[in-house]
């Protein structure tokens, strides 16, 4: 299936991939937390875009494409980045750790939980990269 980022099809495909990836299931077996992504407009993206993913014990229970922030007032993490930085991560041009450490990816939420689960976060990025067949 073609999964062009950003699109609702891409997000649905990501959900499918997460739920079928055995390595992710193992690495993220203890992860409990939903994530709200905010992609700031830049380049080909002219309006802000949001994604919501409910990740639980190595599976994805729910995704939402472009929900309002008010629909998910207390996600465990809010991640925000510009469109170019997000696409650079998805295409492997930008190391996700570099993105976080240089503030190209802003993180809001429990840092204690994040630092315990860096391998889970990195494996989530791997699955998202493998889902992405093209960039808008």
């Amino acid at each position, binding site marked *: 299936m073609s999964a062009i980022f950003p699109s609702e099809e891409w997000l649905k495909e990501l959900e499918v991939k997460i739920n079928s990836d055995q390595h992710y299931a193992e690495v993220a077996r203890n992860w409990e937390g939903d994530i709200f992504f905010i992609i700031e407009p830049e380049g080909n993206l002219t309006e802000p875009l949001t994604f919501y993913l409910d990740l639980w014990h190595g599976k994805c229970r729910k995704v939402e494409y472009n929900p309002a922030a008010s629909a998910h007032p207390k996600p465990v993490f809010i991640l925000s980045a510009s469109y170019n930085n997000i696409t650079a991560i998805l295409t492997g041009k930008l190391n*996700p750790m570099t993105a976080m450490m240089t503030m190209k990816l802003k*993180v809001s939420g429990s840092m204690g939980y994040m630092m315990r689960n*860096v391998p889970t976060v990195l494996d989530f990025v791997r699955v998202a990269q493998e889902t992405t067949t093209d960039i808008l």
Partner: protein
Amino acid sequence: MQPILKINLTDNTTEEFSIPKEWERDFLGGASLAARILYPYLTKELDPLSPESPLLFLNGPLGGTNGPTTGRFVICGKGAATNLWAESNIGGFWGPELRKTGYDGLWITGKAQSPTYLWIEGDRFEVRSAANVWGKDVYEAQEIVKAEIGVKGARVAVIGEAGERGVLYASICCDHGRMAGRTGLGAVMGSKNLKAIAVHGKNKIEVAERYAQLRSEANRTLKQDNEAKILHELGSASAANYAEYLGAMPSKYYHQGSYKGVDKISGSKTAETILVGQSACQGCVIACGRVVDLGDGTKRKGPEYETIVGFGPNLLIDDLVEVARLGELCDKYGMDTISTANTIGLAFHLFELGKITPQDTGGLALAWGSFLAARQLIHMIARREGIGDLMANGSRAFGKAFGAEEEAVQVNGLEVAYHDPRGVSGMALSYATSPRGACHNQSDYFFVDWGHTYDEIGINFYERHAQAEKAANVAKHQNWRTHFNSVVICIFANVSPQTQVDLLNAALDLDWTMEDLMKSGERAWNLKRAINIRMGLTAANDKLPKALLEPYHEGGAKGFAPDLKGMLAAYYEARGWDLETGKPSKQKLLELGLQDIAKDLWS
């Protein structure tokens, strides 16, 4: 920069030393400027514990200006155990307080006839008897000195019993547990019969209007930084889980590549269990310092990453409260926790190998995981009792005493910190080439190996097990951190190179570019190298201990060992250093404006 007050403790004479303007221009301040000032005095023949040995406390040019993490200062001289260039960077509030007296440095030589402390208030200078504080721990001593001088707001830098007894990794403390821990400058201070230096000033630290604007913006940005938020919430031990995952957190004295108990001692666990608050150095918006309650209702300093790993995984102790107590005990005695834990780890290791026995330890069984044995050894080291007397000379000398110098995980007499080059290969060069021995702060390259790049100054990402190809990148990172040590700011301040240039230009009325900033760092790095060459260092000193060159059999770094020879060859080329001697080339020294140094090294 303001003048430096030179104090000779032998005859209690003082004189002001005005810093030459061209030195300020080329070296800014802090450790870089100290290297320039002390260059003529740091000779091969100099005994670091002799009266002639200089001890220089020095601010940076932004000290106390409330810029991002600018409340720090450095202490420099000749290393007690290393016999090489020594510098130790320390936070707290003492440096800014010194600045308010009208001085930016204290340059101490000589030896007092009896235990002494100094009291400096504005231009008033007193030498006082330390009879009441000699033998006291660093916290008691500060309180007694403050009570004796009776001036609110005074700050006290102090040594503990370890410094008094010449433990070669004794530290100097100010405020509540801020430590100049590395290179044994507490022993140098103790050798001068100098227990403490109290300072209080009334001068206002003036800043330019443009700087005031920029520092506020920089502090606001820093407060929102991901790393700063992590350090505030979890402290530096936030790194433990991921470091362990990568095989970069050594355990069992660098012989075990993974540690299942990591989550019992990590920064996350600290935050969830014993943490009751944060503490900050002067003007710092990060506040990485831990305030903990160990169950007795007392608020005290909590451990940071090095202390947690040193007394935790390194000794296979997974009890966070006991680890915190071991760190506190070292602090009270005034001993560097990295070197103390490392040397105790070596003792455990040699005990396991049968190279030392209960006969050597006075019957003490050195069993992995025993915090009671570790605690007893800390007491014995600080008091130089029994086997502790040998351990107080550092791991290199201790290993040598039992015919096992090669087992000591140290470089040039400074114990290796807890960032394993088998997990993050850049640390191989950081440790092997640091001017003060196996130091993780002259280049905390593990962060770069995690992914922290600096595009603006060409510090890029290389895979964590890449080798010679990252050598030039390590050199750039060392130059960058040398800049930090000249301004004397904290390596946790994730402030962009351009912002740092802007802050310096605004504060000091300069017109520097990022290239100037990096060149300043490179200049000082080469100067420190030249100091060490004059004190006998050669290319043969750029090495790693045996343990770090043997691959782990498990964990995230399984099977990998750095090819140090190949890395060093590429590093020397990137540095413009002579492959045979390890000296900076004449051409490089001239290019950096170090004509007199070039003449000394190459004539």
